[in-house]
């Protein structure tokens, strides 16, 4: 069975500092997508970043970057220069390639930004 594990239920970081959120997953597939979704207090699920497993280069989106370690099945999210607006629940997620977009989510990490 495919599973996604986020071992940190909550984290805090000082504004302007860097924080890394951890995620591991389990799958027997060789091709798949990995995602980080952000859920602010508004509840809206927002896609932060996406990584295709066949690409070795780590995805980046402005202050957000990932460390994708395929052999270790690890997919961590790094947020640089943390801002107050980054405070949210962050979900790591997995989707088999071209399988109807079905996404499996981890339990989430709540990120607090300290002013």
């Amino acid at each position, binding site marked *: 069975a495919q599973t996604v594990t986020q071992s940190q239920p909550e984290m805090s970081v000082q504004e302007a500092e860097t924080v890394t959120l951890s995620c591991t997953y389990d799958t027997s597939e060789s091709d798949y997508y990995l995602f980080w979704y952000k859920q602010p207090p508004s*509840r*809206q699920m927002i896609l932060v970043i996406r990584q*295709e497993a066949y690409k070795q280069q780590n995805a980046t989106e402005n202050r957000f970057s990932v460390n994708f370690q395929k052999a270790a099945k690890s997919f961590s999210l790094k947020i640089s220069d943390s801002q107050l607006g980054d405070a949210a629940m962050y*979900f790591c997620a997995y989707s088999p390639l071209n399988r*109807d*977009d079905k996404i499996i*989510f981890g339990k*989430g990490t709540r990120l607090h930004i300290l002013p």
Partner: protein
Amino acid sequence: DARVTQTPRHKVTEMGQEVTMRCQPILGHNTVFWYRQTMMQGLELLAYFRNRAPLDDSGMPKDRFSAEMPDATLATLKIQPSEPRDSAVYFCASGFNRGRLDFGPGTRLTVL
């Protein structure tokens, strides 16, 4: 900017009542998903459709939940009868085989 819409945004009802949640997926998307979010279980996949056909509803309690797509612009999730343990946020999401989903704003359901 195309978005997934859901109605109602909030619903408070009494145990035993029927609840219907509606979703309008993004035009052109061919997959539609229903997720339920609770504090204890996180985001659970309840059911999903491809080209309006149900593909997997194994995550859904069959005795009281039902999901349908009467047409390409409407997906429904119905609970009958509702129970307090059904209280949660229900998300609809749509996609188009490109490895990402667009989520609606969710329906917060409270069953008293």
